[in-house]
């Protein structure tokens, strides 16, 4: 009997249709992503030195830091696209640094990723791009896939764009189409690499609202890299500052009041001259 497309957001579509009993962990076991003692260097340049960090389930965490601090690299580590020189990355209780590429495919069924440039396949239409994970991993009929893809495209504000090629989309539309593809299989974790970069304020607010809605409605764990401080402060439950190969973690309020001079310098530089933005409070020395 063909599995039915689920309507509510409790289990991933892929998991619902493909999981053999006892083979997968249930969603409730996925409490967080945990990075322990991560070391990584590109050539002689160290990126992380014993980085420890946790990302709570069902919350929005924003990775911040200067250029070259390793924000995108951290997302790629969590996605298993690169491996650390040392350390453990635990997702749903499983250390992914020891997994083979084939086993990583199983872990990635829980993870959606929005790449900075969208990473849509440029030889396919937007519809085919969003439908691809369903066609590959589900047994849904073509009619069900069509309905699901149209629902997702409408959810990201792109109805009636399925027939367009990625090159025909603007930057904001491309990001939203890529987000539709990232969430079409209802992953538990979505990694977003600079979703606001190069966008006008209207599109920034649109994507920000979309991410917040996804987090609230479906309980997704969102990990976002961003240079956009106002959006980050509005949406984040947790801010992670990557500085000097390590991480300073806290809520936005905690970090705004941080006595760490490196964090304060970064925030002051980001908020300098920002109209209507409350300056970082002075900390008594």
């Amino acid at each position, binding site marked *: 009997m063909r599995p039915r497309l689920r309507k509510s957001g409790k289990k991933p579509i892929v998991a619902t249709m493909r999981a053999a009993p006892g083979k997968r962990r249930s969603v409730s076991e996925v409490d967080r992503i945990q990075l322990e003692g991560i070391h990584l260097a590109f050539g002689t340049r160290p990126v992380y030195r014993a980085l420890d960090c946790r990302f709570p389930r069902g919350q929005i965490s924003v990775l911040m830091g200067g250029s070259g601090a390793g924000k995108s690299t951290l997302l790629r580590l969590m996605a298993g696209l690169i491996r650390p020189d040392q350390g453990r990355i635990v997702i749903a209780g499983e250390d992914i640094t020891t997994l083979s590429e084939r086993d990583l495919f199983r872990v990635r069924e829980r993870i959606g990723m929005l790449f900075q440039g969208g990473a*849509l396949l440029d030889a396919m239409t937007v519809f085919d791009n969003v439908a691809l994970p369903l066609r590959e991993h589900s047994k849904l009929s073509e009619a069900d896939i069509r309905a699901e893809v149209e629902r997702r495209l409408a959810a990201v504000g792109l109805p009636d764009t399925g027939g367009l090629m990625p090159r025909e989309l603007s930057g904001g539309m491309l990001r939203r189409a890529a987000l539709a593809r990232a969430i079409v299989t209802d992953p538990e974790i979505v990694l977003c690499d600079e979703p606001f970069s190069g966008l006008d304020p209207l599109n920034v607010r649109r994507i920000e609202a979309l991410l917040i809605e996804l987090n609230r409605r479906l309980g997704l764990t969102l990990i976002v890299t961003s240079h956009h401080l106002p959006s980050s402060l509005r949406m984040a439950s947790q801010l992670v500052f990557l500085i000097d190969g390590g991480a300073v973690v806290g809520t936005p309020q905690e970090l705004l009041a941080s006595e760490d001079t490196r964090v304060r310098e970064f925030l002051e530089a980001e908020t300098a001259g920002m109209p209507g933005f409350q300056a970082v409070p002075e900390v008594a020395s």
Partner: protein
Amino acid sequence: MISALRTLGYRTVMLLEHLGHMAAFVGQIGLNALRRPFRFGRLVMEIFDVGVLSLAIVCLSGATVGAVLGLQGYNTLTRFGAEGSLGAVVGLTLVRELGPVFTALLVTGRAGSAMAAEIASMVTTEQLDGLRMMSIDPVDFVVTPKALAMLIVMPMLNVLFILFAFFGGYVIGVELLGVDGGTYVTSLEDAITFEDDVAGTLLKSVVFGLLVGLIATYRGYTAEPTSAGVSAATTGTVVTASVTILIFDYVITALWGV
């Protein structure tokens, strides 16, 4: 001295590592070609890209090469009063040597370089990483259909090249220079045998198709994710594949006498 030895050792290790990666890549393509899912739709698209879009250049080049062979062959053979053997000379030269080699070089320039550039630009724009994040193996989804298409199409294009070259040689030798048409065709038929010549040309073109497909996809897949990386993958494909074709042509000819 020690420094030179160290450099030599490092280069040897790097070469072995490179060869190991290439062998694993080839093995992965072989496995993907044999196991489900069979991506017929993508294979047909790639056959169109490699084959149909190369038709014009292969046919035109074939006719031209045949015409040149007819002209040169006639000029040489008339010195010995042997112009009646023009069909045999044109046929044997094309079937045994020029057909498979020229076709492979032409397809490398047109389709192999395009294949490498396409995959390399997918690396640069993170499209292959996007596939990995959808739990889709890029070697299975992107690379295998391209490599298989090259393997399937190369013998077909080789046959077309040879047929058009026969035609080019016929037009020059018979219609222009006055060689008897019946003599031309008969000497061609008598000279070419299936076991030695036709099987040999097909063997060469299959080997060349395999090599060009693997070199183009590997260079694209392992390209640096920069625009210079795309350029290096494209140039590297043409140079490496061309030299490899010529070396393997000699090896096959020497070993099997075709």
